[in-house]
């Protein structure tokens, strides 16, 4: 009896599976598609918000890119391509952008209009929204954004207007050749005013949330998972292949890897230090690709900073004595780039400057470091060099800091005390200038060098080390209107190498495991902008 039922089930399973498999081929590549088009990936932490103007974190942005669509998207290589706008024009002076919107619908059937963008952008700048990303409008340079955020001008004076339902005009305060690229950022995505007003604070709940992206939010279990399914209203729905995309919250990277091995998730991060072993075991699933983030030790040059660090020779000695190759190859082991400059070297429009000490051997660097330190009157025969290095709680930060302090001890005889702080305390100390040296890292907001170089201008909110250089500030300003800003960026990096307000340590890579049947993952995109609709699963 049992046997017959099983046999019958098997037969019917084949009957169903047969034709489906024959029908499924990728429209462009012609690959045979798998029957089940579901993609499940590991997410480190719960999503803070599904509201584009409120969200602040990267994992939230991955989901927002599926649920909503901004004016501009980025292609798998990271280039700007039309999104909700089918085309755009920029005026001669570079100050006015006119976007032509394509015919598209919200997931509830409403047409997507220029007014939706105006509403969302005003909402972002509006002090009443109290968005942590309100400054992004200022960064984009949208006319009057600064005044509106400060509460000095009405929200409707923002330099964005709906000329008609399908035409959006944006006025910015200075030419920015990279402006369209900034629009891939989730905070600029449109929202549906009607829906927000109907549901109030609950508008982002599954069932209420209305988006214009390729997927709709169907399930959200806080701390467990986020599920989104194909949106039949999406303008390019015919080319969407994945039916269901699920993000599972798995805090522990090792458990995530176990669940990846068990086939529960299709993508996860490689746990720190395990890349070489995994690459050897699973070469077709283990990837290390550049990611736009840069890791540094920041010197405090402000009033509270240690006296020794006011001397550029000491700063240089500290930087030269750090053996980046050891940190990258023996601690991190994930193909990261040892770094001698600030901007991530793969950033679009960035040309690597000829930084002299980068070309030396480590022995040469160390010899020079000793020489400079002696000149400055520290180390053997001089004053003892006593410094503190702050870092925030993390196994990797700790390992790197221990290695660094050993290198400084051995080469320079410097006593560097390591001080570990919980994240918020670390930030608080940075803000208040209460540190000697501190770990810092930055991930670019958009794929252009100014997202890095702007951080060390005198007035920048990130410049906790109080580095100030007139020439640097001038170059930062000039780069905004330059025909060939790569030249300015190069010079700025040169100033950073000469003045050494920071010790560049390494530049990031994205170290991930991706199942071989999942195709279309944007490995080449430095900004790691993932669009689920471009991915698909092939039949094995």
């Amino acid at each position, binding site marked *: 009896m049992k046997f017959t039922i099983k046999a019958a089930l098997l037969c019917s399973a084949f009957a169903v599976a047969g034709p489906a498999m024959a029908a499924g081929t990728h429209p462009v590549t012609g690959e045979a598609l798998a029957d089940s088009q579901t993609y499940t990936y590991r997410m480190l932490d719960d999503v803070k918000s599904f509201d584009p103007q409120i969200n602040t974190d990267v994992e939230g942005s991955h989901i927002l890119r599926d649920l909503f669509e901004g004016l501009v998207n980025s292609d798998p290589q990271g280039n700007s391509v039309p999104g909700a706008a089918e085309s755009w024009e920029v005026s001669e002076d570079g100050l006015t952008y006119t976007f032509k919107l394509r015919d598209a619908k919200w997931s509830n059937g409403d047409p997507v209009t220029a007014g939706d963008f105006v509403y969302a952008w005003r909402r972002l700048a509006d002090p009443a929204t109290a968005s942590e990303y309100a400054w992004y409008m200022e960064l984009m340079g949208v006319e009057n954004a600064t005044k509106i955020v400060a*509460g000095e001008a009405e929200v409707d004076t923002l330099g964005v207007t709906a000329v008609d339902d399908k035409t959006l005009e944006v006025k910015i305060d200075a030419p920015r050749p990279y402006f369209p690229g900034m629009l891939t950022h989730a905070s600029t995505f449109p929202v549906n005013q009607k829906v927000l007003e109907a549901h109030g604070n609950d508008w982002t709940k599954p069932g209420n949330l209305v988006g214009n992206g390729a997927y709709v939010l169907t*399930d959200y279990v*806080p701390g*467990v998972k986020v599920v989104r399914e194909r949106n039949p209203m999406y303008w390019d729905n015919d080319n969407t292949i994945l039916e269901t995309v699920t993000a599972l919250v798995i805090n522990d990277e*090792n458990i995530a890897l176990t669940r990846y*091995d*068990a086939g529960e998730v299709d993508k996860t991060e490689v746990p720190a230090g395990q890349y070489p072993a995994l690459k050897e075991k699973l070469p077709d699933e283990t990837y290390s690709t550049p990611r736009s983030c840069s890791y540094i030790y920041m010197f405090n040059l402000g009033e509270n900073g240690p006296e020794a660090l006011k001397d550029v020779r000491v700063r240089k000695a500290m930087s030269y004595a750090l053996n980046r190759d050891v940190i990258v190859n023996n601690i991190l082991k994930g193909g990261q780039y040892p770094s001698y400059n600030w901007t991530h070297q793969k950033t679009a429009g960035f040309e690597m400057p000829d930084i002299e000490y980068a070309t030396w051997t480590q022995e040469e660097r160390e010899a020079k470091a000793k020489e400079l330190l002696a000149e400055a009157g520290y180390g053997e025969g001089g004053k003892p060099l006593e410094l503190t290095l702050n870092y925030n709680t993390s196994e990797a930060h700790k390992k790197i800091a221990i290695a660094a302090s050993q290198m400084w001890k051995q080469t320079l005889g410097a006593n560097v005390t390591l001080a570990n702080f919980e994240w918020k305390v670390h930030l*608080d100390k940075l803000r208040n200038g209460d540190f000697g040296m501190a770990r810092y890292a930055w991930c670019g907001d958009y794929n252009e060098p100014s997202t890095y170089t702007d951080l060390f201008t005198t007035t920048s909110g990130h410049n906790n080390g109080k580095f100030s250089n007139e020439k640097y500030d001038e170059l930062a300003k000039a780069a905004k209107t330059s025909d060939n800003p790569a030249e300015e960026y190069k010079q700025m990096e040169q100033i950073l190498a000469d003045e050494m307000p920071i010790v560049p340590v390494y530049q990031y890579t994205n170290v991930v495991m991706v199942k071989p049947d999942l195709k279309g993952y944007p490995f080449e995109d430095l900004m790691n902008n993932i669009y689920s609709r471009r991915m698909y699963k092939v039949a094995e």
Partner: protein
Amino acid sequence: MLGFVIRRVAMAVPVILILIVFSFVLMRAAPGGPFTKERALPPVVLENINAKYGLDDPFLVQIGTYLKNILFHFDFGPSFVYQDRTVNQIIADGFPVTLTYGFWTFVFAVLVGGALGIVAALKQNTWIDYLAVGFSIGAQALPNFIMAPILVLVFTLWLGWLPGGGWWGGPGDPNSYTSYLIMPVIALATSYLASIARLTRSSMLEVMNSNFIRTARAKGLPDRTIILRHTLKPALIPVISYLGPAFVGMITGSVVVDMFLSTGGIGKDFVQAALNRDYSVIMGITILVGMLTIMFNLLVDVLYAWIDPRIRY
């Protein structure tokens, strides 16, 4: 007895109030705030945010408003970090989950731990005793942050029996309700189970060597009666005083289970809120845990009186 209960409940009110004020002050004394990020927010933006959440009011006004909202509206306010959700929603989402696996952990730990302890005591100094004691020492030494990854490795990767984490998503879920429950319960129960087993064993031994048990034996009562009626009840008193706080621990201190097995309970919310300086969430869960602790301590005291008639209040 009733008077005792009423007095204890009345005493809980000032305790909770002190708890609220203390947590509020301590929390604000910690460096950094919910909006301290890598990127310093422009001062104007920060002002706008502080105004929205009332963080720019004088400190006493903030406490006052907070207490008023709780007492009169039972409203713990919006989360500062999970801005789509209120504290009430966060607790309503997470607490039932925690309560569920906490309850089953309790049942499992008490039944298995108790049984182990009793058997070990009855068969003292035999191989059964040694096995039970050895097992509980081993279980106690195995922290749940080690247990959880091992369980996932064994049950998910090797055997393929259970999902590697998560929580039951309703009737459409391909996995059964129980399958999500097993690993959290085992991971959380082991150390409690070990403590219960050892406590029960030593307490049983102590009672079994006391005079009244010898008298009972001398009277010729059957072993069954001696153990069930005369030994077990007094032997359970130390165990019960342990179980009250332990139960609160099971249903609140489950951060490891939430983190490693993605169950979505409030244990993780609590720790995450402290790290994020999500003031309102810290307060909400602190008050919840505080009330539960007071409640279970009271319950334990009442149970004492019921089990041991010599105790009177």
